């Protein structure tokens, strides 16, 4: 077992780092910005990625990509995260839509969409979750009814990042209400013309997510991806890419959370308190375990394996360390963190509140534990 980069990896990492250092030189620390400012920089960053030919890093050369592997993409994301780079505004396009269309799309679909994503002028969002579906994604009820030349779609979607910027949506809808729940679903590459988008305000004041209401939205047959009724299978592909795109980012965010906690403790003069030192020791264990576990997961992937249920352990550890570090940071803050007019205190509280979502988004904590129980411990299903 060798955790070192190979010479090739190292060279790539250096190339990436060199480019990032230049491209980020004028980009401020995102953590201290307002939502609007962050969104501005996300757009700028997306443009720079496209201009720098990084958008299709792990796409096949035949599709206009650079033909590198998922690890390269992970390394790029890691190096970007370490430098506090903005989140690219078309992450869904680059990381989810493109690869899924490459995997399941027709030639026509690939020709229609891939170039726009690489150029940076076709923005995507992901319409999977629904208000009623929660952790039980396949229970979705958005209904697509057959009409001449396509489908008429009615329903509501939620937790859609970037819906207000996107023109296309990876949309799941139920095309056969009579079929078993995983079989009646179809995956659409839907234009968003008829979508009503409403932004959701999160508890920290950010508007990261949206609701989308579909009222007799027409989607043409050409925009069915992977065949009618095969939506669940296609969706699993997208979800796998989604997990993969996080691969080396989680640990960076965990380490940064611990860094910031130490900073506030130093500032407040309690960094030598033994109770605090013990807390950092415990957080350090979890944070490093996320990093190392991510490396092992990528190692397995590269060796041809499929990331297993252990990724649920990483997600779970990551959520815990970030939540605990961020809670402790606000509690150590001046006035217990509740006076939010100072920029530092406000950002710390914003991060603490944001982190409450970590045990909910991307598979709830309860779902992660169920996966571990069923697939690692081989216990019977409890859901």
């Amino acid at each position, binding site marked *: 077992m060798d955790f070192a980069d190979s010479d090739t990896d190292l060279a790539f990492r250096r190339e990436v780092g060199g480019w990032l250092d230049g491209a980020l030189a004028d980009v401020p620390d995102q953590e201290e910005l307002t939502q609007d400012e962050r969104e501005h920089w996300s757009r700028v960053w997306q443009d720079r990625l496209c201009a720098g030919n990084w958008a299709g890093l792990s796409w096949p050369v035949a599709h206009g990509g650079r033909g590198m592997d998922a690890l390269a993409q992970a390394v790029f994301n890691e190096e970007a995260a370490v430098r506090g780079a903005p989140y690219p505004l078309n992450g869904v396009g680059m990381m989810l839509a493109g690869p899924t269309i490459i995997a399941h799309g027709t030639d026509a679909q690939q020709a229609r969409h891939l170039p726009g994503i690489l150029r940076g002028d076709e923005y995507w969002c992901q319409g999977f979750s629904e208000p009623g579906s929660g952790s039980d994604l396949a229970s979705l009820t958005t209904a697509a009814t057959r009409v001449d030349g396509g489908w008429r779609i009615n329903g509501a979607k939620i937790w859609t990042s970037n819906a207000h910027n996107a023109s296309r949506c990876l949309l799941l809808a139920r095309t056969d209400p009579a079929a078993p729940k995983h079989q009646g679903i179809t995956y659409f590459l839907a234009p968003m013309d008829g979508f009503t988008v409403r932004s959701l305000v999160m508890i920290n004041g950010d508007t990261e997510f949206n609701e989308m209401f579909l009222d007799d939205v027409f989607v043409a047959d050409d925009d069915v991806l992977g065949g009618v009724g095969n939506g669940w299978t296609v969706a699993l592909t997208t979800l796998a890419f989604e997990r993969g795109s996080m691969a080396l980012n989680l640990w960076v965010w965990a380490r940064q959370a611990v860094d910031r906690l130490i900073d506030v403790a130093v500032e407040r003069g309690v960094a030598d308190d033994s109770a605090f030192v013990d807390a950092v020791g415990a957080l350090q264990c979890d944070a490093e375990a996320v990093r190392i576990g991510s490396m092992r997961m990528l190692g397995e992937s590269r060796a041809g394996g499929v990331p297993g249920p252990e990724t649920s352990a990483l997600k779970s550890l990551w959520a815990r360390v970030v939540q605990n570090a961020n809670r402790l940071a606000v509690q150590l803050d001046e006035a*217990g963190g509740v006076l939010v007019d100072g920029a530092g205190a406000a950002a710390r509280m914003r991060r603490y509140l944001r982190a409450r979502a970590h045990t909910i988004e991307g598979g709830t904590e309860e779902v992660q534990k169920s996966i571990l129980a069923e697939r690692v411990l081989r216990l019977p299903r409890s859901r």
Partner: protein
Amino acid sequence: MRATFTQEQQDIGRTVGALADADRGTARAAWSGGWRAPAGDGPLLRDFGLLGVPESAGGIGSGLIDLLVAVEALGGRLVPSRFPAHAAAVQLLCGDGRRGPLPEEVLDGRRVLTTAVDVPGNSGWADTASVDPLVRTLVPYAAQADGVVALGPAGVWFADPVRITARQSLDPSVPLADLTLAAPERPQPSGAGPLRAALVVAAELCGVAQGAIDLAAEQARTRRQFGRVIGSFQGVAFPLAEAATARKAAWDLTLYAAWAVDTGRPDAGVQVHAAKAAAGQAAVFAAERCIQVHGGMGITMEADPHLFLRRAFVLDARCGRGSWHRRRAGELRIRARRATRG
């Protein structure tokens, strides 16, 4: 031993609970247009001002637990009334038995007070500071009060704010301010005042915890996933059972601490520290679990769970940080045990 609520206490809980029920939603209303007095604010200040006030201070024999029952009921519905802060100020004043009766306009709520006990940069309350910087922070409803009762190393006094600086509060229904005070002319001994005031905050925290648990349980009873209501999954139910256990522990500690303070027991201090620490932790934990049980909706502004979390944090920070109270409880416990063993 009659460790049960008296009929009067049950009546207080019901009456204030009904007032509070009518003011549900007022915490949320503060998000648009800032704090406004809830409908119950006036009646509470007018009719319940004698709760918990010792006879020596002009009371009519009501014990501290009476007051805490009222405050807990308000906390459960997040009613942003000035009553708890006013009551805490009154309690701060009447901690020393030798003090005379309080002004009538204070006891009948015509003069609304607030409490100034936390010093910027300290995690404990102001009487632990060796030099008084004459600045107080986390003062609730300062601009909405007619007077300020301050705590300092020298004692308590009706304070004259030289400057009131409004701060941005995590919970918009609880405006907070920094106050610069004039040096006190005749501070009075604080006695058990800080302990009494801290218990008012602890009681409100117990209410917040209960309210968050009630909301979470309601969600767990109704929200369905995988064909079942989610409350039938032990993975959802058990953490709520833990939250309920923590809340019960905190409330029992708070009630007992109030009795210990009222009866002048020597362990009153450690009991109050334990109560305040446990109440803050129970409220934050319950609110976090409430968010979790609500899933995605729980992390949106439009759902209510975050309101409980915000109030929990504001109260945990006030009148001595929760973490400070926990450490004090530990210190006093260890000291007492050492003394026993010689």
